[in-house]
């Protein structure tokens, strides 16, 4: 598949135009977020900010309390990550290396769970959370996401690949299963856990609908929920909106650029996002 120089040039040109179209909306939002509102509305528009300002960001922090939402989002995501790392590796070990009656049938449930649409579960889950008195609490936001079926599936696949001999040797030495899990399996799981942690963080950070249903006051809002409220109230103040969008998107962009290896691994090990 050798190509002439001309063909190659056209290929790169096409790819670059595509990239501009894909990254353009973020780039434009980012540039606009540091312009004053008047400059955003100017015709013809300025590309590079003529007046550089961080006022949009400070206004978000002070007036809309986006700082609180940021802290909430980080905390919620970290708890969900910790829960998934612990429980999914534990459950994954059970499915991969321990034999018990009904194991394969129960593992089938993991796959079933992945296929159920969110909207089907949302209303009865909300009723449940309401009965438990967890509406408008962090616990209500966190609890249903503490063990994700995708995480169980990923960890089970990874642990199944670990050599049985290691575990047998430890059993012969008289180590209990919990000790084997904590001392031998967990340390070997580090690469899979890095990927799982990243994917779970991403899912929890971006999650919008469930937190929007559970959280009902400012002190419990996560970032996407707070930004959606802002979108409803200040729908035309695009200087504030794009700055808010950057606060939601930027941490993920940074993570992605530095850790992209793990993202791509996540897709290839699980076949899912």
């Amino acid at each position, binding site marked *: 598949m050798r190509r002439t120089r001309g063909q190659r040039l056209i290929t790169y040109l096409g790819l670059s135009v595509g990239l501009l179209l894909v990254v353009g909306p973020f780039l434009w939002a980012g540039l606009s977020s540091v312009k004053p509102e008047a400059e955003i509305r100017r015709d013809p528009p300025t590309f590079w900010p003529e007046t550089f300002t961080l006022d949009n960001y400070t206004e978000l922090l002070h007036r809309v309390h986006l700082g609180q939402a940021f802290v909430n989002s980080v905390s919620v995501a970290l708890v969900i990550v910790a829960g998934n790392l612990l429980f999914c590796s534990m459950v994954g*070990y059970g499915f991969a290396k321990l034999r018990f009656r009904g194991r394969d049938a129960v593992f089938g449930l993991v796959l079933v769970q992945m296929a159920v649409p969110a909207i089907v*579960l949302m209303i009865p889950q909300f*009723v449940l959370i309401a009965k438990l008195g967890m509406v408008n609490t962090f616990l209500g936001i966190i609890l249903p996401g503490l063990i994700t079926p995708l995480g169980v599936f990923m960890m089970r696949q990874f642990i199944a690949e670990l050599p*049985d001999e290691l575990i047998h040797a430890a059993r012969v030495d008289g180590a209990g*299963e919990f000790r084997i899990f904590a001392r031998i399996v967990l340390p070997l799981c580090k690469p899979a856990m890095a990927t799982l942690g990243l994917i779970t963080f991403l899912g929890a950070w971006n999650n*919008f609908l469930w937190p929007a249903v559970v959280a009902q006051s400012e002190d419990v809002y996560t970032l996407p929920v707070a930004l959606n409220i802002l979108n409803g109230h200040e729908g035309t103040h695009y200087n504030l909106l794009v700055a808010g969008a950057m606060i939601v998107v930027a941490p993920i962009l940074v993570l992605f650029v530095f850790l992209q290896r793990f993202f791509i691994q996540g897709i290839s090990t699980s076949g899912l996002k």
Partner: protein
Amino acid sequence: MGLLRRGGLGWVFVLPFILMFVVFYLGPLLAGLGMSFTDMRSTDVADPLAVDLVGVENYIRLAGDEAMREAAVNTAIFVVTGLPLTIGLGLAAAVTLNSGIARLPAAFFRLGYYLPHITSIIGVAVAWKFLLEPEAGLVNRLLELVGLQGPAWLQEQATALPSIIVMTAWRSFGFDMVVFLAALQGIPRELYEAGEVDGAGRWARFRSITLPQLRPVILFCTVYSSVGFLQFLEEPLIMTGGGPLNSTLSASLAIFKQFGVGNYGYAGAAATVLFTVIIALAVLQLRIGRAR
């Protein structure tokens, strides 16, 4: 194997999952199904067992609901146009990136194309609302430069749903691209070399080698995206609220709105129908895809 059969211990390890599954998935799934045969409303949450059974009344009402019908049509349009667009873009990007481009630039482009897929829907929706804003938006300002008057994209019935479809394809194609890239690398080079010897041009090679070899992953992407696209909700919820005049109301959004006004039983019935359609379509696609 079988050196030590610690049967009970296996259950202990998977217990967290089982608890989770029963409490947050199986229970709600069955409760939702049961709910759909009752007149449950938000006010009944305090005592959910005191609701009245109404049989299939919710389902009958559903069949005659004009908004639900519009939502079903919009969802069908969204899937039928959005799906080929997304898969086509993903395939085009993957094939181009796999056509002998140097490693580093290929990784760079792949990174960029994948980016929208992992960013928050609310961030993306806000950025696109800003782009499509009738006056200050970049799209219409650029159209102005070439002497065209762009519409109010998200406020007009004719353009609102197409705008959301394009945005969704833009956001989703990177995932398909990564899946296709992995599959492309598994196609034996000899096939292409043989094709070249036989005098097949690039297009002929794409059609008779690449496409048939990619069939299983195309099927995977089709089923996976159909399941996701049939549930689209957040895009119209954030960008248009389902308007103008229900032109962007999706099935999931219609259910969400019924939930919002407290009609839990009715929403449950609609959700059950949607779930059935999703499963049926996935099974059908897998059947057709495997049969050929």
